[in-house]
């Protein structure tokens, strides 16, 4: 009797606690976070942990014949040149992103000056960014087609140039893919630079005008210092982008003729050759590279965050 009473009191106080705001806070937190946390665990945490474990194993996609091999996968990666060599192709994309940023800054500066139909120009140059990646890849497969009916070769033939095998010539095919990549992504950089340039106070321009600054001085002394942080951030992000290139080479050339990238190689190793252990080790290597770049980014951009 006494016990039941105590239990009742306790029960009531639990209900009261839940009704009170502290209890409600916890209840709401658990309720609201349940689904997102389960999804995070399923599709991010567990795969990340697995990736680490699998990288020390030899296993297939179904995980039937699991064998612990220690550092063998990493040893394969660093001794068999065919894996890491794909990282070298990232250099093309890295240089490409430099060019892309410079061109984007150039076009953005022009678009921010007094220009008629600036909106139309901006719209046309930006639109490829919204286009489907497979569509872009197919368009450029045709553009760089090696025989005389490829788009680029057709244009060149007007000037009497013989057809060039753009995508199967190992000296130039990666540059072609970089071109397609710039074509697709530059619009976003331009948009971002326009935003940054427009956020510079117009008073500064007026002051510069009064001092008789010309276009170059205006760019070098006002615009450039104003957007320098964004340029630096974009450069760091472009390293991340360069080591993670996948879609454009995967669809246009299938990673053949020395156009493979590290991510394409990882996916091939994992899904085509069913070497999950080795593919996991590759993913871990990529993760390490990205972590280093992120660390550099955090050090340089501490004050801005």
């Amino acid at each position: 009797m006494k016990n039941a009473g105590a239990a009742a009191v306790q029960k009531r106080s639990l209900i009261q606690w839940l009704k009170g705001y502290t209890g409600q806070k916890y209840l709401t937190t658990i309720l609201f976070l349940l689904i997102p946390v389960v999804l995070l665990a399923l599709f991010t945490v567990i795969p990340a942990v697995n990736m680490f474990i699998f990288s020390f194993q030899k296993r297939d996609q179904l995980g039937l014949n699991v064998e612990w091999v220690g550092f063998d996968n990493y040893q394969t990666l660093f001794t068999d040149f065919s894996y890491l060599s794909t990282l070298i192709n990232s250099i093309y994309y890295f240089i490409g992103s430099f060019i892309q940023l410079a061109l984007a800054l150039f076009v953005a500066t022009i678009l921010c000056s007094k220009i008629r139909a600036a909106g139309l120009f901006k719209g046309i140059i930006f639109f490829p960014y919204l286009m489907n990646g497979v569509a872009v890849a197919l368009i450029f497969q045709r553009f760089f087609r090696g025989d005389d009916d490829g788009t680029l070769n057709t244009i060149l033939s007007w000037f009497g140039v013989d057809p060039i095998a753009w995508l199967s010539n190992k000296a130039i095919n990666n540059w072609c893919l970089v071109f397609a990549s710039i074509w697709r992504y530059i619009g976003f950089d331009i948009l971002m630079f326009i935003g940054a340039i427009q956020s510079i106070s117009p008073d500064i321009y007026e002051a510069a005008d009064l001092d008789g600054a010309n276009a170059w001085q205006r760019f070098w002394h006002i615009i450039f210092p104003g957007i320098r942080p964004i340029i630096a951030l974009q450069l760091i992000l472009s390293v991340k982008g360069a080591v993670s290139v996948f879609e454009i080479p995967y669809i246009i050339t299938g990673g053949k003729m020395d156009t493979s990238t590290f991510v394409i190689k990882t996916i091939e190793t994992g899904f085509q050759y069913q070497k999950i252990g080795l593919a996991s080790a590759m993913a871990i290597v990529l993760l390490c590279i990205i972590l280093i770049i992120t660390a550099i980014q955090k050090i340089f951009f501490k004050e801005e965050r």
Partner: protein
Amino acid sequence: MEEKASVTKKYQFRETPKAVRILFAILKYAVLIFACLLVLIPLVVVLFGAFKSHKEFLTSGAFDLPTSLNFDNFATAFIKGNVMQGLINTGIILVFSCLGTVITGTMTAFVVQRFRMVLTRVVKTAFLVAAVLPSISMQVTVFQIVHQLGLYNTLAAPIVLYIGTDIVSIYIFIQFLNNISVSLDESAILDGCSYPRVYWSIILPMLRPAIGTVLVIKFVSIYNDFYTANLYMPKDGLEVVSTALYKFIGPYGSKWEIIFAGVIICIIPTLIIFLSMQKFIYSNLVSGSVKE
């Protein structure tokens, strides 16, 4: 006297660059027109080619106008090439993923941003760390989870992946919540509102602009995504727009006019959305990425 000299000096200064300025203006337009040509030339060839018959395509030059407006290639691509199926599947995936992201994203952001306790801090850090992981390489191990859950070759696979691995949206919501005053919540609580009620009647309506941003980013990334569907839904009939187009490379490999028609159909929805909400897309894409 001295004043006059300075005036002439100023006059001279403004006079000289005038010719230069005209030259500059011409150069500016030349650069912009050249850039637009670079964008349009690869596309124009596709547009012209899509209207040509197979014979015409093979015999005419890439920049020759089609002799007639022939929509046969579009019909072939749309029905036989499964682009229609792809559009339907992409639409279904878009609706559910957007809905899911908005609900779970805003709820997570609300709890994580408003309640400062150990649990929410841990969750926030977990999301922060997760954002660094390389998404495509991760599929090597995500694949097994999807397989074990029985989601392989179902539309649910991309939907849960788009909802579950979207960390950018949560960031955008948290950033936006930072600027919504807590005093609103407090006054509602004084009026006797519960926390879920605060979320539903105060926070969610206030987050409307952020939801707009997230929806734009979500649309662009899902409509254009290729590898998720390619990896998890290879079965016929489960094509999305991207994979339907990708499958053209095999059977229609020699029929470029049909591939071109498929490309055009796939671009049209994007073009319509871009033209109808250009300003909205510009401002939201940039604000979304800067906050990342």
